[in-house]
């Protein structure tokens, strides 16, 4: 039976009728399920391996559930694993990651949101020039600016410190974040801002009392994107930090690449889980906002 589009939308019928053939629906469901299993395999293997003893791992049943589940590998990974420099486990890396994350999150959001606001609502000379410059910046590959940035941070005496790593993360995030904020703010109706400006609301007053309260969503999206991006970064932490300032990912990599003995995969997988848990928790809690964050930030770097 054919229904005219107007009637269809008036009846709120779905535009696309799912396959009527129940066999094909079941087949599609099974394909989707098979892919879900395939995607879940690495996480499953990480978890079961981290709960096994090395004796059990050497038996070679990678998918088998642990016979005697133990958190010993997790304890070693967090407290004792050797990174080649010291045998303090991952915990120092965890705190370094926190020390890197907090300042870079605050600095990058503060600077880029105010700049995006200025570009969206105020007459700024060369504002459009800046926007095109930022678009180009977003595509400049990191290796070509890496060495000069090392020299600059060394001159500023922040090279090899966690604050130096934060500064580099801020610099790397600014072009894309400024564009995201500018585009979001530009969609806010101008009338609201005009009223405030005629009433004499100043630059920062308008930003603080009108723009920010209208923008909780974009702030959360940007925060999620920055937290996961900075937490998962490796190269910046490696090249701008040192033993005292390495983030968790670098710490994890050092633990897995020390060649001083047998490869303890249960400890490696526990260490990997410990490093993965913070962003995974954010992912499972934030859902759609996470998706918006990664699609908005896809150009980053």
């Amino acid at each position, binding site marked *: 039976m*054919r229904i005219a589009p107007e009637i269809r939308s008036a009846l709120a019928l779905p*535009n*696309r009728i799912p*396959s009527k053939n129940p066999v094909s629906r079941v087949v*599609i*469901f099974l*394909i*989707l399920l098979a892919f879900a299993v395939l*995607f*879940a395999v*690495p996480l499953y293997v*990480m978890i079961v391996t981290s709960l096994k003893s090395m004796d059990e791992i*050497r038996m*070679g049943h990678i998918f088998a559930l642990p016979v005697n589940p133990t958190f010993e590998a997790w304890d070693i990974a967090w407290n004792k694993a050797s990174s080649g420099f010291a045998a303090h486990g991952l915990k120092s890396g965890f705190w370094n990651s926190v020390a890197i994350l907090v300042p870079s999150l605050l600095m990058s959001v503060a*600077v880029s949101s*105010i700049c995006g606001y*200025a570009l969206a609502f*105020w007459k700024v000379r060369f504002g459009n020039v800046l926007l095109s410059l*930022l678009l180009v*910046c977003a*595509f400049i*590959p990191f290796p*070509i*600016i*890496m*060495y*000069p940035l090392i020299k*600059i941070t060394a001159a500023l005496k922040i090279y090899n410190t966690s604050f130096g790593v934060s500064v580099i993360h801020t610099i790397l995030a*600014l*072009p894309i974040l400024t564009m995201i904020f500018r585009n979001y703010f530009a969609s806010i109706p101008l009338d609201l801002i005009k009223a405030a400006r005629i*009433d*004499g*609301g*100043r*630059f*920062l007053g308008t930003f603080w009392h*009108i723009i920010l*309260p209208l923008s909780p969503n974009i702030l959360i999206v940007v925060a999620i994107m920055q937290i*996961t991006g900075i937490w*998962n970064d*490796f*190269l910046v932490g490696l*090249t701008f930090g040192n033993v005292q300032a390495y983030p968790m*990912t670098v710490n*994890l*990599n050092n633990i*897995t*690449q020390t060649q001083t003995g047998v490869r303890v*995969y249960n400890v*490696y*997988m526990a260490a*990997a889980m410990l*490093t*993965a848990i913070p*962003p995974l928790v954010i*992912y499972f809690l934030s859902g759609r906002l996470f*998706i918006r964050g*990664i*699609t908005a930030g896809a*150009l980053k770097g």
Partner: protein
Amino acid sequence: MSHTRVRIHKAERQSFLSKHAATLAVLPVFGIALFFYFGSAIWSIVMSFTASKFFPDYAFVGLRQYSRLADDSLWSLSLQNLGVFALGSLGSLVLGFVLAVLLDESKVRGEGFFRTVYLYPMAVSLIITGLVWQWLFNPGLGLQQFFRDLGLTDFDFNWVGDKHKVMYAVILASIWQSAGFYMVLCSAGLKGIDAEVWQASRIDGIPKYRMYLEVIIPMMSFTFLTSFVLLSIGAVKAYDIIVAMTNGGPGGGSTLPAYYIVDAYINRRNIALGAAGSTVLLLIVAAFLIAMPLINLALNRRKS
């Protein structure tokens, strides 16, 4: 917006600060873009024409570093690996598109569950991706042993240990990591297609697969172009996954340009060589960014 507090300042202060506040707010970003991005990139390009080793040296030696790169078999191999990796990464887009279509077609219950499972690898660091896949590819204890235990005694899955297959292992890990992301992009593209297009196809009785190949995919050209740009940038950037999974080996079989460049800067302490390599990367990105809009234009012209 009654809950928004609006502070009214009766007398507008005409100090320098309030007059130029917007300009001042833009200055830091302007400065960073010019100084840290453009300045740094230009400095590196200049360095690529010198013979700087551990310290910058401003005596020009022409294209010597570029001919060194051209003569270095590891650099040529890294460019070749980049090509293989970029092509293989298209698998992320293909799989992402298939998953998006299946989810769109089926309207199964638990769609949210499936999306969550396909996308979670994106939340995890590439260091972890590399590490866990290195473990899965472990020849004696990983997937190879699992399939041999099942009776496939000749099953060869030791890709990570084989110079000629190691890139396939990296590609597989990379597809696992990013297919969910391209599914999200393709789902958005599919949602943007007018319902009337589908209704027309039903009326005309066109089979589904032809509908996708001949109508839907061409209509999603913008989604695919965006994906191509992101995939190629991802391939140029790829560094972490190589470090964690293979360290560029075996025999340079998984060395990518970014890995080569960071190694030149940090381990070989050769500024000029690293600068020359990164200039080549910049040129690759630039060529791609110039080519993409032209391709888009050509496609649009052919359509009309």
